[in-house]
């Protein structure tokens, strides 16, 4: 238990570090698509909603709240990627 937690923490630090290193080099021109792309990625919290949905039990209220989370996260993911695609399409055509 202890070891897994430390490992998880290590992964967290490594991921943050990689994220920081990769993004530091991104030119200003791409700040908006980066932002809307990473915004879409933050909708990955959908996974948590999927994991807990079968386990909410009898409570209707909790079920509704998980459904709201699912709706929000899906909107975030699908809308975010779709709009990022639109933005990047504009950068592609004058390549």
């Amino acid at each position: 238990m202890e070891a897994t937690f430390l490992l998880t923490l290590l992964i967290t630090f490594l991921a943050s570090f990689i994220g920081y290193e990769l993004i530091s080099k991104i030119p200003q021109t791409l700040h908006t698509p980066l932002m809307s792309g990473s915004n879409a990625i933050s909708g990955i919290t959908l996974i948590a909603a999927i994991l807990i949905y079968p386990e909410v039990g009898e409570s209707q209220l909790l079920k509704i709240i998980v459904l709201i989370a699912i709706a929000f996260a899906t909107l975030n993911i699908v809308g975010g990627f779709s709009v990022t695609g639109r933005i990047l399409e504009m950068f592609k055509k004058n390549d």
Partner: protein
Amino acid sequence: MIEIILLVSSVLFIFALKLFGRPSTAHRANTFAMLAMALAVFSAFNFDFSKYDSTFYITIVASGLLGVLISKRVQMTQMPELVGLFNGFGGGASGAIAYVELSGNSLPLSDVFVAIFSMVVGVFTFSGSLVAVMKLRGKLNNFNKKLADIFSVFLPTIILIPAVLEMDDLLIEFIILVALIAGIIRVAVIGGADMPVVIAFLNSLSGIAAMSAGFIVNSIILIVAGALVGASGIILTLLMCAAMNRTLVDVLKGGFGGTDVNNEYDKDPISTSPEDVAIQLSYAESVVIVPGYGMAVAQAQAAVKELTNTLKDKNIEVKFAIHPVAGRMPGHMNVLLAEVDIDYEDMYTLEDINSEFSSTDVVIVLGANDVVNPLARTDEDSPIYGMPILDVDLANQVIVIKRSMSPGYAGIANPLFINDNAKMLFADAKEGLENIIKSFELV
């Protein structure tokens, strides 16, 4: 099997971020990220799709369709609002999940802390983002600052509550309420031109909320992706702050600008006409255009493109100088220019173009103000002192297209406007440009 899918997904997310680094590969980055997301979501089902009822699937499909619909309809000038809105949804989702985990299960104390943290950050991101969207739409003006300061002290202490009190539903709901109000008030006190920082910061928070949700449900991929988003958001936040020579705390404190420190001009500006500008431009060899928020408000991108074409046809060199905080989100101006097919090779950053202004014939300042205010270099008492600016005053001639002499966000006069080499074309950005283009036909 699931582990392998998740490994591939994590690697794809990291590759996607790397590909985002160059305009030529960025469109592939989005495909990679989408693929990574699809794999991650798929893995969450653990090959058992029968555990989920029809309400679940209908919710996913309906909100997915709604997302596509919204994203296709929105205009490029509304991009900051849209990113803010989606961001709020992401944060809200994480907050809701944390709430369900807190009230539905008896979690170990360490998880209770993480869950409360995730809930507070998520809910704060949700309400803060919605307020940011309202501010961006001009629906909300500045707010009582003292109230916000009280709340900001209150918020961190909330997270410590489980250390002293037994959690019950009422307490959880109280915490949600505080986080909601804190998000609203905190963003409400921050002025519109600081929105690039706010949007980037909220973006980072939504990643952090997702990451901590990953800790509660033990999902490595959620932690990895959340951390990547958190880190990228923080970088953009700090970049935006550096571009204004202010700290994040200072920006979040709000109440910047709007005070008339020095609004007086000791002489009248030289005003000019579209015809004169056209003549002046036709004799130039090099032109630099400095777009600002005014260009976005007036939807003047198409007119900018037309003027650029006109000038290029006359073999005049045209470049764009873009300040990092121009507009309402990081990279806002670049996207608007890309929308009208302006080559990103022609868009220059502050560092790349500042040395060139002294050899530029004509600079057109289009709806920008504080980012070209020379007081940032000279006046130590000015609120913008030390902020890196575009040194347009060093150019041979400067034309400022602006509706009036009113100050920018910082609320201070801009001596550039009364400089000997500067002329004012009093017009809305779009209308001004269109009149110049028309005059070209007569020159």
